[in-house]
């Protein structure tokens, strides 16, 4: 149950600085907290509220709207199986049933060893590769039951170092060097952009 670490506060400050309004950084910061702890803790959300200058209730209000944010601990590997129309037509529901019986859990549940959570998710934009799934938001296309079992055993044995623990999304972060930054444009800045030619009426 942790507030953001000093290193993450530094990252958070950099992220907040890119937006005209601090609250716009809220979702990226919640992801950062989830990356740190695997799920969203109350302490982290309270800390983020301080950082973006809103109340903890507002942070929870936003966080609770979005499916990727988990308020309770989940497995190290979040296995999201698509059952939407294109996947349903190609066996997505059968794949989900197979996953349920293989792991002995229902969607939303976590295995006793804390390794796997499965979810029955909506379309993840891999429709031509049905049935598809994601493990911690990494794609696996046209998955057979056998391939699913193999994936599970690879994850169990720690052979999939390419898949970080739940909470980590992109492993490359945007970083804008200070000397290259154009700077955030706040809504109060009503100047005409300098590259626009100004006509006689003062308009671009």
């Amino acid at each position: 149950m942790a507030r953001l670490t000093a290193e993450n506060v530094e990252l958070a400050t950099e992220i907040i600085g890119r937006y005209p309004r601090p609250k716009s950084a809220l979702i990226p910061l919640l992801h950062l907290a989830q990356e740190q702890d695997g799920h969203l803790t109350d302490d982290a959300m309270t800390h983020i509220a301080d950082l973006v200058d809103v109340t903890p209730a507002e942070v929870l209000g936003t966080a609770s709207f979005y499916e990727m944010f988990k308020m309770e601990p989940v497995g190290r590997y979040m296995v999201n199986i698509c059952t939407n129309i294109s996947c349903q037509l190609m066996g997505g529901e059968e794949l989900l049933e197979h996953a349920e019986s293989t792991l002995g859990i229902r969607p939303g549940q976590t295995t006793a060893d804390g390794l796997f959570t499965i979810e029955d998710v909506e379309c993840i934009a891999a429709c031509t590769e049905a049935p598809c799934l994601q493990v911690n938001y990494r794609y696996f296309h046209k998955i057979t039951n056998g391939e699913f079992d193999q994936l599970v055993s690879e994850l169990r044995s720690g052979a999939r170092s390419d898949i970080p623990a739940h909470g980590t999304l992109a492993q490359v972060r945007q970083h804008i060097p200070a000397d290259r930054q154009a700077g955030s444009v706040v809504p109060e800045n009503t100047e005409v952009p300098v590259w626009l030619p100004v006509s006689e009426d003062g308009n671009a």
Partner: protein
Amino acid sequence: MTIDVPRIITSRFDRDDSFTLSGYEATGGYQALRKALASSPQAVADEVKAASLLGRGGAGFPAGVKWGLAPENVWPRYLVVNGDESEPGTYKDRMLMELDPHQLIEGVLLACYGIGCGQAFLYVRGEMALAQERIAQALNDAYAAGYVGKNILGTNFSVDVILTWGAGAYIVGEETALIESLEGNRGMPRLKPPFFPAAKGLYMQPTIVNNVETLSNLPWIINNGGEAFAALGAETSRGTRMFAVSGHVKTPGVFEVEYGVTTFRDLIYKPEYAGGILGDRELKAFIPGGASAPWFFEEHLDLPLEKVTVDRAGSMLGSGAIVVMDETTDAVKACLRVVRFFARESCGKCTPCREGTTWLEQILQRIYDGFGRPTDLDLLMDVSDNISPGITWPPKQTTICPLGPSAVSPIASAMKRFRPEFEARIAFAEQNRSSVPVDFPKAASHA
């Protein structure tokens, strides 16, 4: 100009280094930006207008016209890139972000230059970790090379492009909901009017929201001219467009084709595209433009993939997602699955959608489970009518955004064409009254 295979936005997809700066520069990357900076912002806007580029997100609104809707004399303006691709069946923006992120970034810069946007926000769907990674790397490289940020390529054009991302909510693909999300709020749509983003968008400032595919076309348009783009395709649908063909086909895939010319039959049956129905079975129905679109049938196969034609025929090309269902498809099951999606994704702001989609799902679920009542079919239509009065196309709505009416599309389609399947399930339920679900005989649904 003539091109044999019109590949505008997918031209680099076959290259292993398509997503790198060096690969992009080696294939003409950032030349359009240089060209634009040597001319005026107005010239960029004029080329986009001449191209008659329709938005590729779903609504198909002309991009050049959208740009022109920002009120004069109101600054700052923002550009928001909609990369929240999540319409079921749609798979194209993710490809463009993963495989050619620099093309998108160059498109963003051209748009900012042409519109006069002070800052751009590239909103990627939360679930797309690789797309976020590729764009982050591309932006870092582009900043270092002087293409993005302060004094771009030594000119007075300066703009930051900020990578931002969501956290799982289909509704955020709706532009005002996306803006809410970008302001750190729950992603609920705003009422239009007054909150048309071009007038009152991000932080209540003029904001142009463009789709990833739309913006990815801009480098080609600036390099080759709007007229060359408009020379491709049909009168009301210019250029090329990406279509994802999924479901019961032999070679599902994402294909860039000349817009307005290729037919559904071409795309579904031709060997260079989806290659025909699996097992050479018969076509039962297909969704022409994502889960929100009313279904099409055999008689629609020869329609061209052209906006106005498809609109008139009672559906839409939407997000370029074609989902093919063969004769073995259970219409009730497919309909239930699509409706369930909208019920799960309803944001809850408007009562007809929040309550209505849930009702529709529950009624369909009980029909499917063998507990349907004879009155259920009328009830389905009645609830649908409350969400979308008259159940017409284009749909009317009692809601702020089109999500609610979208749930009506599969019901109206399936009931119109496959009503006997629903009736058979209900009749079966009547004959087998039981407190536990009884397996519906599979053959009966395709008799």
